[in-house]
């Protein structure tokens, strides 16, 4: 089903934000591999570091944040590049061309001053895929057609405010796939949209992935979207990956207490539930995270070792990694 060829290897990625209230340890030693052609989902709640991880891959971390350590190996036709060792100029060659992003809020990721045709064209032009903006706008029509934008010939000259939320997200997806990226990073691509539109956009991402053979890194908090889209899933909690497995294993045989709690807390519309099981407590501060396992204060199975020792991500069965002492 999925190739075994690694396209992205993330090792010990650590990002800290040096804010005046203290050092926010946004992600700590996050490691995972992404295989070619798969949809890999990073799932977790607000502040768990999933977006920071996605941005750090191409050094998209703004001050006061800093990538403290880690490597991101990007494999391309036999060569291996550490994306974090590249300079600003070099990384830009990859960003938007080989590794493209779709962000959560289409409203703010499009510039209100330019027509959407211009913006798609610009994405092509900066990576020298077209010779001029004018030529790019012609290509933009085709791209908008592939993202199922109705009436693309007319739409290219529209400005973002003239489009609905779903249409705008189609444009950002169009910009994302404009350069045939090898990796498409979709950061909560449907969170700002209604469910009926969400279904359309998720279908579109699936189609684009198949058409271009891209690898998709999907960042989301919605377990339903994960179930729909993902091949493999990494569950993040408080800046760390706590469990990583293929999607069926995660939903059928979750091991980490957090993953289990998360799945029980999500209401399933097909089942009549008398009472949801909630995870007690709240997400810890990332300035002074709990010692040992970061989930231990909320875990009902926590023992002494959980409070003293940080659990490592270990393979418990083929392809199923868990970071838990239990």
């Amino acid at each position, binding site marked *: 089903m999925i190739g075994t060829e690694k396209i992205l290897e993330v090792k010990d990625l650590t990002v800290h934000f040096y804010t005046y209230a203290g050092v926010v340890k946004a992600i700590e030693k996050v490691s995972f591999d992404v295989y070619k052609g798969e949809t890999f989902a990073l799932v977790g*709640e*607000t502040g768990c570091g999933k977006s920071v991880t996605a941005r750090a891959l191409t050094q998209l971390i703004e001050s006061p944040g800093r990538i403290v350590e880690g490597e991101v190996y990007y494999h391309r036709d036999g060569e291996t590049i550490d994306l974090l060792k590249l300079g600003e100029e070099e990384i830009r060659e990859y960003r938007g061309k080989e590794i493209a992003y779709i962000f959560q809020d289409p409203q703010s990721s499009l510039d209100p001053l330019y027509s959407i045709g211009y913006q798609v064209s610009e994405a092509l032009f900066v990576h020298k895929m077209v010779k001029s903006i004018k030529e790019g706008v012609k290509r933009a029509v085709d791209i908008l057609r592939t993202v199922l934008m109705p009436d693309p010939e007319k739409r290219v000259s529209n400005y973002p405010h003239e489009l*609905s*939320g*779903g*249409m705008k997200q189609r444009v950002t997806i169009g910009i994302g796939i404009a350069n045939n990226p090898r990796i498409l990073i979709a950061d909560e691509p449907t969170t700002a949209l*209604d*469910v*009926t*539109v*969400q*279904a*359309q956009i*998720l*279908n579109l991402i699936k189609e684009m992935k198949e058409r271009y053979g891209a690898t998709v890194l999907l960042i989301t*908090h*919605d*377990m*339903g*979207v*994960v*179930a*729909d889209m*993902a091949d493999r899933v990494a569950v993040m909690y408080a800046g760390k990956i706590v469990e990583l497995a293929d*999607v*069926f294993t995660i*939903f*059928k045989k979750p091991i980490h207490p957090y993953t289990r*709690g*998360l*799945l*029980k*807390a*999500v*209401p*399933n*519309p*097909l089942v*009549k*539930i008398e*009472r*949801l*099981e*909630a*995870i*007690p407590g*709240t*997400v810890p501060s990332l300035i002074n995270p709990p010692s040992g396992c970061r989930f231990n204060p909320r875990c009902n199975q926590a023992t002494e070792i959980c409070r003293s020792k940080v659990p490592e991500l270990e393979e418990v069965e083929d392809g199923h990694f868990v970071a838990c002492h239990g």
Partner: protein
Amino acid sequence: MEGMQGMSSFSNGFSSSSNLLEVRNLKKYFPLKGLFFTKGYVKAVDNVTFEIRKGETFGLVGESGCGKTTVGRTILRLIEPTDGQIIYDGRDITKFKKKDMDWFRRKAQIMFQDPYSSLNPRQTVFQIVMEPVNHHGIDVHDPEAFVIDLLEKVGLNEGHLYRYPHEFSGGQRQRIALARILSLKPEFVVLDEPTSALDVSVQANILNTLKDIQGELDLTYLFISHDLAIVKYMSHRLGVMYLGKLVEVGNSDGIFEEPLHPYTKALFSAIPIPDPEIEKRKEKLVVKGEPPSPINPPSGCRFHPRCPFAREICSQKEPELKKVGSDHEVACWLY
């Protein structure tokens, strides 16, 4: 939970005397101001009729811009209705003057979506919770003990009394908001997407608290949400809105078992099920396009341009809510 069982008996047909709230032909048009003249109206809520029974949770679902939030606010007269009646406990609140409104404000409260902006950042928890009581001149013997009691009821504690909202997480803020609402001992609470800004693990906590408190204090809820899974979990009865109209209303279990309106069907089919075995295999009814603007809604049935089952009559004549089951009404020409 004991209260819950007693309440489920309300779900199948009671006489209208058990209705706490009746909304009749509610309309809210927002004028679109031009330079000198009104250019038109946004028909946010158009002829909506439903009733909420005492002690039940009435769910109102729909996508953004369908008017569900406007309904919630108009019922509390935070927005003045353009037309229609809102009958609370047998009295039409749209006719209320200042003194009656004071009475109504003590009975009916609202909990907002965004816990980050619904609490005044400059007030301590104590001030936030005491404000309604102070305003209505309710005599509280020991204010501190009173607030602590409320905080404990919603899952907070004494140590939170003199803290400011920014020191709390989203879920805790929603609990503070709830304590503030409960300080007036209301009968009816509008819950306007109370958990949509929260994470799932916290959401489950808040929903459970809301359910427990409903049983304990015999509250009636209007639960507004875009998330069907939550609405199913919370409500006894349910209304589905599309573009300012109620398209389907009735017993929640009945609608979930057999949704009739094509929009309800599409809505149900679009929610991703958190189970890959089902989700990756299920057939989806993906409707085309997006909801049109409520300024110039489509003629006839407002859903017809997106409806896979649209017939000729759908674009010409507006369907009325029709009774199709013991507690199930739908506004669609197919039935």
